[in-house]
């Protein structure tokens, strides 16, 4: 075993500049990969939170508003309201529905704009009553929206998905972009490991030939190369884990969590999982190219 470690160490020393290049490439690509994983987790957390809060609001006709389903100057009738409520309740996607009266809407308006100059600009009668609908699965909103938006007495249906979906589309693009870029970099890093090991094996081909001749086992011949590439990969993974930890601490713990308290943020357990993932990827990406690169020197 001492001989194996000595060989691995001398290999690392001989290829110091290449090893450094591999470590740096691994570090950057694994940090990006880890950041992509954490970003994905953060997007999921935000999505769960926001989608969970989303409700569809069906604003009813009042005399001050115009709409395709409204009679001008008329509030929605009780019969219309009952028909709308029945339609909502009978829709299989509806989890919960409640009626917000004009007075309740007015109270909420006063609460939101308390102290503001527009607080006194509206009266109860100018407020719109509405049905607030909570869905079983917030992602399946289209059926209900299209069903009730054409019903008599409904002025318009407000659906927050219209605003949130583009945000999540961009966030998703961002996370997949990050992961995609890191995958490319990781591929480059693994090719670099393969080349480094191939060069190291070529430099030691005479020794390898003698080892094969005197009956050294394949694992014994390969072990110093595996240790070399594992060393570079694990060092890269450790640096990437440090970078992720620093990123989490300075960006999330110190800033985001402080300034945006109402949102759920990724924590140390998520970072731990990302670090484990990053280390696992680093190990696989170092072993596989090493096995391929040394294959021809092990052929018996």
């Amino acid at each position: 075993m001492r001989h194996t470690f000595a060989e691995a160490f001398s290999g690392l020393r001989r290829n110091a500049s290449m090893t450094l290049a591999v470590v740096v490439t691994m570090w950057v690509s694994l940090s990006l990969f880890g950041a992509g994983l954490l970003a994905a987790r953060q997007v999921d957390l935000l999505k769960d939170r926001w989608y969970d809060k989303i409700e569809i609001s069906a604003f009813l006709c009042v005399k001050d508003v115009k709409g395709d389903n409204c009679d001008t100057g008329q509030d929605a009738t009780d019969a219309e309201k009952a028909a709308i409520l029945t339609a909502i309740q009978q829709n299989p996607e509806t989890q919960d529905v409640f009626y917000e009266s004009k007075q309740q809407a007015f109270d909420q308006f006063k609460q939101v704009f308390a102290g503001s100059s527009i607080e006194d600009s509206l009266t109860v009668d100018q407020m719109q009553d509405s049905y607030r609908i909570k869905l079983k699965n917030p992602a399946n909103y289209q059926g209900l929206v299209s069903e009730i938006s054409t019903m008599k007495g409904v002025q318009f249906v407000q659906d927050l998905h219209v605003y949130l979906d583009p945000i999540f589309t961009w966030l998703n693009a961002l996370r997949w972009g990050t992961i995609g870029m890191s995958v490319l970099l990781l591929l480059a890093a693994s090719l670099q490991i393969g080349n480094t090991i191939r060069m190291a094996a070529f430099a030691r081909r005479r020794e390898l030939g003698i080892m094969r001749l005197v009956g050294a086992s394949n694992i014994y011949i390969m072990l110093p190369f595996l240790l070399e590439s594992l060393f570079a990969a694990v060092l890269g993974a450790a640096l990437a884990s440090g970078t992720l930890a620093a990123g989490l601490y300075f960006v999330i713990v110190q800033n985001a969590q402080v300034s945006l308290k109402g949102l759920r943020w990724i924590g140390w357990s998520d970072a731990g999982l990302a670090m484990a993932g990053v280390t696992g990827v680093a190990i696989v990406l170092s072993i596989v190219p090493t096995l391929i690169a040394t294959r021809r020197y092990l052929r018996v």
Partner: protein
Amino acid sequence: MIRFEDVSKVYEGQQRAALKNVTLEVEKGEFVFLVGTSGSGKSTFLRLILREYRATRGHVYVAGKDISKLPAWKIPGLRRQIGTVFQDFRLLPGKTVHENVAFALQVIGKPSSVIKKVVPETLELVGLAGKGDRLPEELSGGEQQRVAIARAFVNRPRILIADEPTGNLDPATSVGIMKLLDRINRADTTVVMATHDSAIVDQMRKRVIELDAGQIVRDQVKGVYGAR
């Protein structure tokens, strides 16, 4: 110790057989010269014993085992029973004489206590006592070949294969190397040596197997180089 049963070897992409229907047996403790022109199949014969190649047809037995069927992971075990010496010595230039010989034991996992004991013994056997700290470049050709023989013999193999071991040496040095190989053979090690050196073959009067175009054309007890 070594048995070829109707062995043929055709290399990939070649029409002509490097070895054709070779059948022979080498007994334990025998000393055999393999002679023939370049391309006659001598090296192929030796490489089949080492299982560097697999026979295209027939069976090769080494120490009673059919090595044609040997799985790849068992080949290192086979090679630990066979010592090999080449014309170009194949020493590691950065390692001392002691380290070169010890290397063969280190890489098969022998404990350092064994290495410390066996390596100096073997160096003494090959006539290199006191030269363990030298680098190969500081030695003469004959001495370098002695190091190679020490490395091949340090694990006390049952078979020693020598491919033109005197090819790079002057006649006087060659005699010294042959004496060493003879000594190893007397210690019950089977020796198979491919050579072009007629003087040595004629002088040693051991079994001579002559190959021509991959076929055995002569198998002679106490033979000479050129006679039929």
